[in-house]
């Protein structure tokens, strides 16, 4: 019964653990929900450990087992507590007696860091090991693999493998009569040169000539057992390499060792104090340590790669280095490190220019790398990274994009199909608008996309470029099936520098959607000048003007009046004076609209005509004219008019 309770308690606490992990990883730190849940869970677990003592769980792909009982079983791929551990290679999790809330918090923090981090290189095992949690222990697949070495490694075999040059002593017998051994006990100074003493030992070169006579010039004392014998290499020994002693010295970086051996201080005489670091030296070491905390793996590697690009003297090897640069560049991008990726890519580009005159083939490889960086496949990685690391700034992104040439425009345009973040999209759009002028076909193809948002982005880019070619593309959208696209088009064209947009706007002014029509007119009006006036005139003269909605007609007449100034007055007066014997509603409306339009006409001629109308014998016209005159003055000399 008690045992049953135990299993049940453990089952519950594991469920809770999954829940608390989900909540802590989902909510921000300051949210009260994770805070309280974390606390209640930790307290529960603490008392459970206190009650039952150590608990060890075997971890499988989606189960956790405690004393042969399955205490956790995952129901789905997404909600899998066992999986969190299993995926990182943890096969056993041990919760030890003496586990307190503080360490449980720490444990949850590590898991949170692991799950929430976008850094794909983090591994839970290392994070747990690096944290100082003492009462939660674990075993991994690697531990199991490593533990097999314990059995496999046989010391005796190992020692037997040693060459037999050196005699092995086995107890006392072996020692008896060994002259070499007895020499140990001859008082020092009375025996022959016995210790490897730097001052007394012959120094040999590989050629076998003693360097003794050159002692003053010699730079390094390579001690050999017998001078004159050339060094022999043992087989299969990677490291055991014989060559000139001077070079050996150079190899060890000891080539300028002062030669006077007598002046070498005898370390055995060094006082113990000399081993201890002084306070000053401690500070120096602290400085070194502090500097090291600034180590940035990305920056470090970017700088290293730059140097490595200069290290190869042979083309094949150089190509290999470039390939490595490409690999790392990709990894940086996928980790969201655009600034550091920019360092690598911009260096590839700069170096290409620099070496092209003398090493065209080498330069070609670099160019290839730069172009490949802008390939659709590579940019897909960028897009994925941008969607994960929303915090990547526009500046960073822009800087990276600036490293691409026209070849990448097509693929950069495609980024707009996959990016999720608005800031990033805007950044791409403005990049394409700035750089797409000569490659309208690349940046303009977006208008054919089936997704409206992609089409809208293309509109923004094309309207910013605004040249003839881009307008041809844009004009294709006037009849786009999606209203949002058409609306976006008329809005975007408002600020386009090209006059050619008026043709498109004119067509839009007859759109079936009123918002779009209004926006089109507004866009035309906002452009001012003669061409705009002409456009409006054309719209009004168009046969379809009569069938337009009244609010459109009013808007158009107003636009016409405003843009046309004195040139518009004549037409407006014609609308007013048109005889309306049978109280035709349409004629009446046009009269009203014409008066409304004259309110915002600033020309003197308008004023004169209004004055004339205000003295009209037709009471209807007279009244409206007086009204309009007053409103117009308000409009022109102060006060607002609607």
């Amino acid at each position, binding site marked *: 019964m008690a045992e049953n309770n135990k299993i049940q308690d453990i089952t519950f606490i594991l469920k809770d653990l999954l829940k608390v992990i989900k909540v802590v990883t989902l909510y921000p730190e300051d949210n009260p929900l994770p805070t309280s849940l974390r606390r209640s869970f930790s307290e529960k677990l603490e008392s459970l450990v206190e009650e039952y003592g150590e608990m060890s769980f075997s971890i499988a792909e989606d189960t956790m087992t405690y004393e042969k009982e399955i205490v956790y079983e995952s129901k789905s791929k997404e909600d899998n507590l066992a999986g969190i551990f299993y995926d990182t290679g943890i096969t056993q999790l041990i919760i030890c007696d*003496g586990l307190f809330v503080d360490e449980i918090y720490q444990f949850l923090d590590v898991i949170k860091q692991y799950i929430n981090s976008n850094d794909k290189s983090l591994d839970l095992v290392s994070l747990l090991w690096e944290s100082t949690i003492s009462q939660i222990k674990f075993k991994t697949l690697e531990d199991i693999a490593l533990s097999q070495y314990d059995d496999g490694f046989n010391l005796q075999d190992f020692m037997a493998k040693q060459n037999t040059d050196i005699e092995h002593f086995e107890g006392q017998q072996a020692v008896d009569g060994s002259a070499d051994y007895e020499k140990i006990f001859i008082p020092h100074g009375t025996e022959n040169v016995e210790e490897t003493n730097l001052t007394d030992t012959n120094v040999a070169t590989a050629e076998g000539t003693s360097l003794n006579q050159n002692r003053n010039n010699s730079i390094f004392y390579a001690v050999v057992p017998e001078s004159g014998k050339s060094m022999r290499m043992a087989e299969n020994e990677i490291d055991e390499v014989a060559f000139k002693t001077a070079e050996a010295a150079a190899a060890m*970086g000891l080539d300028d060792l002062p030669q006077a051996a007598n002046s070498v201080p005898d370390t055995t005489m060094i006082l113990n104090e000399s081993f201890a670091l002084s306070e000053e030296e401690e500070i120096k*070491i602290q400085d070194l340590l502090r500097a090291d905390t600034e180590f940035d793996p990305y920056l470090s590697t970017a700088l290293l790669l730059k140097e490595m690009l200069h290290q190869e003297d042979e083309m094949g090897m150089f190509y290999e280095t470039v390939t490595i640069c490409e690999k790392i560049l990709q990894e940086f991008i996928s980790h969201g490190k655009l600034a550091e990726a920019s360092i690598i890519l911009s260096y590839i580009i700069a170096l290409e220019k620099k070496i092209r005159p003398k090493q065209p083939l080498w330069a070609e490889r670099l160019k290839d790398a730069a172009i490949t960086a802008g390939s659709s496949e590579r940019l897909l990685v960028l897009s994925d990274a941008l969607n994960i690391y929303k915090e990547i700034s526009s500046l960073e992104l822009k800087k990276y994009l600036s490293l691409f040439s026209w070849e990448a425009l097509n693929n950069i345009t495609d980024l707009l199909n996959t990016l999720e973040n608005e800031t990033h999209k805007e950044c791409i759009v403005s990049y394409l608008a700035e750089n797409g002028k000569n490659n309208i076909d690349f940046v303009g193809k977006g208008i054919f996309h089936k997704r409206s948002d992609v089409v809208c982005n293309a509109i923004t880019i094309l309207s910013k470029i605004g040249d003839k070619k881009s307008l041809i593309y844009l004009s294709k959208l006037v009849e786009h099936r999606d209203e949002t696209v058409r609306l976006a088009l008329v809005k975007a064209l408002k600020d386009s520098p090209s006059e050619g947009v008026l043709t498109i706007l004119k067509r839009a002014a007859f759109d079936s959607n009123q918002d779009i029509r209004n926006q089109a007119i507004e866009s035309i009006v906002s452009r001012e000048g003669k061409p705009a006036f002409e456009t409006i005139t054309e719209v009004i003269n168009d046969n379809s003007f009569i069938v337009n909605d009244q609010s459109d007609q009013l808007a158009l007449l107003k636009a016409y009046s405003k843009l046309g100034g004195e040139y518009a007055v004549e037409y407006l007066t014609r609308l007013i004076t048109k005889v309306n014997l049978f109280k035709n509603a349409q004629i009446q409306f046009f009269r009203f609209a014409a008066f409304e339009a004259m309110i915002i006409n600033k020309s003197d001629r308008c004023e004169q005509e209004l004055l004339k109308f205000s003295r009209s014998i037709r009471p209807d016209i007279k009244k409206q004219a007086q009204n309009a005159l007053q409103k117009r003055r308000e409009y022109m000399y102060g006060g607002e008019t609607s």
Partner: protein
Amino acid sequence: MSVTTAQDALRSIAGKEEERFLSAFFVLYKTARLVDKDNKTFLNQSEKFYNTLMPICDKFGSVNLKNISGRFFVNESIVRFDGSGLSGADSIITEWNELGIGGVSFNEEISKDEAERFFIFMAKIKPNAENLESLSLKLKANNLAAVQLFSKAADGEDAELLTEEARRQLRTQARSTFFKAMEVVQEIVVSTKSDSEINISKTKRVVHSLLDQISQDESSLIELASIKNFDDYTFAHSTNVAVYSLTIGVRLGLDRARLSQLGFSALFHDIGKVKLPTDLINKPDAYDENDWIQMQRHPLLGAKTILRNMKFDVHTARAARGAFEHHINNDFTGYPMLRLEKVETTLFSKIISIVDSFDALTSGRVYLKKSIEPEDVIKKMQYQMKIKFDEFLLKLFNDIIGVYPVGSLVLLTTDEIALVLSNNKTDKSKPFVKIVGDKNGIHQSPIWFDLASEENNDRKIVRKIDPENHGLDIKDFILEV
């Protein structure tokens, strides 16, 4: 109550009973710091503690708990804890160190109530306002005569407190860790040769275990690193460089994350050699200039291998720098020559550079036929100070190696031959040794001595012995359990 010192010789490895006692001790101590006397948890834990205390008291009349240089002893037996240690013990030990407390003793008359009062009392201590004397007086005033506090042992006294048995266990464990690391290096080499994937997780785990070992007992691993005549020296060399580097790293107080990166970098520092043509490596003749140019490519090849064959992360970034820079001196001599910009080498590269030179020169295997004695290497390296190596790091390394480096053979005034097992922090001339032979020959079972202790006053080191000159193989002594 009298204040006794913790500097008594210790005997053996503790059993489960002592382990449980120690664990319960710290759990209760920590609980007392967090809650009040009548808290349920506290009462529970105190019950547990008392239940672990009494059986030992019954057996020995009292329970003495001592902390000596981070190791715990219960009734003179060393209590072993795997790696991660005890819950909350760190902060308690830090406080004890500040107060000068080296341990505590409970005698068999202690009641549960007294034990509880003791923990509550200890938990409320204000470290700045107290010292061992004042605390002892207060304990007395509080009617806690059944509990005594020990004073802290002075630095360097720990060596002698590790008994032969305890040492043996640590050495066995060190050996297993060391050889695991060597096996992993071998796997890395094989993988690199065939351009197949290198098991990074396994490498990291092996670094973790090296580190766990070093933080417990650095001498045993250094002793193994001092064996230079392994057949598979290539693998041993990388392992040695990792051991020495990590020892420096631990002394520098690097955090665990950085230590893990340092050990990882060290294991990979010479990986570029694997990529050199086999006939160059196996060339029986002396190297000509061209060969040498090839050889000098190994740092670059190493960096390339690491960056190409492994997933990029902080470990590989560190390792690539380490491989590339480990032959570049502080004054930018060495190789490769930096062609773009003279960027200062990283801390890790500086560390690896020092220990790599040391290991290569002492082994005599890398570039020279004959090995050079560690102290001579250190002498040489000291010459290079300021120019070649970082002088401060070198000094730190010196301190680790000492006058009689761990793993070297020495002759004593008593005409005995001894193997140096660990350095004495305060007096480098008096290490902890194991006597392996005398005029009559090699001993079947060696005897362990602390040359710093009073009773061994007659045993002094005469000089170092080069084992090879006398037909001895140092490996036999080091690997012997």
